């Protein structure tokens, strides 16, 4: 890492490119951060800006789950009661997640029975299951995950305050938040195999490699580039964060966070894909569609 150069995107040609994309697409806010393992260089554009985390928060939750496994409180084969009933951090009242918001019904259909931690972790990341996420937060404990993130030095730029679909917390502005720089630290911890153990980090990456939503970062890459990533989208934000493994070179970590007016939905994923494409071109010197 001796030659590492931590340049801001605002110091290199990408700044103008990202700003231009943001303005053309009509995004309210864009945050980008990357780190390239090939050149040991990185940069960020509004990397310290806070965004609503949406489902990107599921990666820090995954880290918290593996923290509990590392501590011996769980293992991947542990069984968890699937129950759609959670307690709001806002007022301690109960709430349920909406089955329609999960991409597949596997977790919802298992209500009353148990699923293994590894199944829930996979559904949380691969199909972004909100029910799986809340079950894992519930069984590990919100405070325990928060403590794990602090101990790993990830609390700067990642604020986990609640489970997902906690509407009463949302109404009181209690939300999970991230910065691009903060999420980049999470990704690098995993890619560097420093998330507890090399094996635990590898297992997290394996789960992230199985991501089914491919319209963000992967859509801006050559087909042979592998990506371990997690997307996130609600009415006002669309994000993607992951590690890109191009053919024939070392990987790079990339976080793209975007914020929009609620009615401006058309260009969100295309904007993330285009930023991904330009970052790829900048780092490899090759066009993504070559």
């Amino acid at each position, binding site marked *: 890492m001796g030659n590492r150069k931590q340049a801001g995107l605002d110091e290199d040609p990408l700044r103008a490119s990202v700003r231009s994309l943001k303005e053309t697409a009509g995004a309210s806010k864009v945050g980008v951060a990357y780190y390239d393992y090939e050149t040991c260089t990185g940069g960020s554009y509004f990397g310290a800006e806070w965004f609503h985390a949406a489902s990107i928060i599921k990666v820090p939750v995954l880290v918290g789950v593996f923290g509990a496994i590392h501590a011996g409180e769980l293992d991947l084969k*542990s069984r968890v*009661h699937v129950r759609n009933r959670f307690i709001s951090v806002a007022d301690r009242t109960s709430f349920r997640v909406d089955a329609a918001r999960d991409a597949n019904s596997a977790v919802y259909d298992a209500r009353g029975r148990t699923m293994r931690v590894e199944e829930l972790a996979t559904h949380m990341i691969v199909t972004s299951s909100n029910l799986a996420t809340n079950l894992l937060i519930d069984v590990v404990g919100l405070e325990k995950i928060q403590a794990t993130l602090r101990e790993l030095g990830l609390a700067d730029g990642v604020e986990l305050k609640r489970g997902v679909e906690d509407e009463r917390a949302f109404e009181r502005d209690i939300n999970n938040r991230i910065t691009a720089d903060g999420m980049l630290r999470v990704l690098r911890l995993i890619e560097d195999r420093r998330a507890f153990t090399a094996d635990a980090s590898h297992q997290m990456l394996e789960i992230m490699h199985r991501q089914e939503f491919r319209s963000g970062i992967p859509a801006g890459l050559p087909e042979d580039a592998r990506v371990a990533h997690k997307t996130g989208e609600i009415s006002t934000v669309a994000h993607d964060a992951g590690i890109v493994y191009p053919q024939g070179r070392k990987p790079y970590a990339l976080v793209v966070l975007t914020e929009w007016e609620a009615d401006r939905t058309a260009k969100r994923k295309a904007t993330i894909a285009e930023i991904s494409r330009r970052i790829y071109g900048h780092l490899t010197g090759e066009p993504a569609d070559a």
Partner: protein
Amino acid sequence: MPDVRIRVVDGLKLPPGYREVLRPGEPVRCRDGRVRRLPRYFYEFSSWDEAKATDLAPDFRAWELLDVDVREHALLRMDGPRYLPLAAALLAGQLQLLRERAGTLVHVSANGGYRSPSHRLSDEPTPHNWGAAANLYRVGDDWLDSEAAITEYGRKARELSPLFRVLPYGRTAGQTDDHLHLDVGFVTVVPHGRPEEGEDGELPRDEARGDDGNGGAADGAGDEA
């Protein structure tokens, strides 16, 4: 038919690790302030497979009241012996009535049958710790997660058996909103020729009330689901 080969063990004679987890015959104070003794006698299953193969009632097997998740003590989740208080057979018999009335499967949820006093959901004693409660999440194709379904099946259960205590629909303590809680009280069963729950055979005294604290009948005391 219920399996007559089922083994009964005295919890006080189990190895120390199991005694620490099951706390047989130990007096505990319940939410209503009364002191009750935890069950002392258990059915013993040498393995999960044996629990899956053992009938407690024609349509209820032992595993259905033993299915727990990671919140239960590790000793009761590993391959090895499983223990179920004798009251579970009484509960299974009552559930059988509901099964026959409904004409379809009655599903007990994970963590919804017996929970040891070491279970993470056992902050305060409930009939689940006596093997005398069941959380039903589905009857046939009916999910019991609405006021209408919980109220309807709760009414049917009460009509079938005076032993059944049903928690009403609601979102506060002593209510349920995503399953139907049925219990038959803090029932303890003592086999013939065996001493009572306490090792010395004496019943605990409730200091606050000066009465016998070993209430074995459904008394409507508040509990959680």
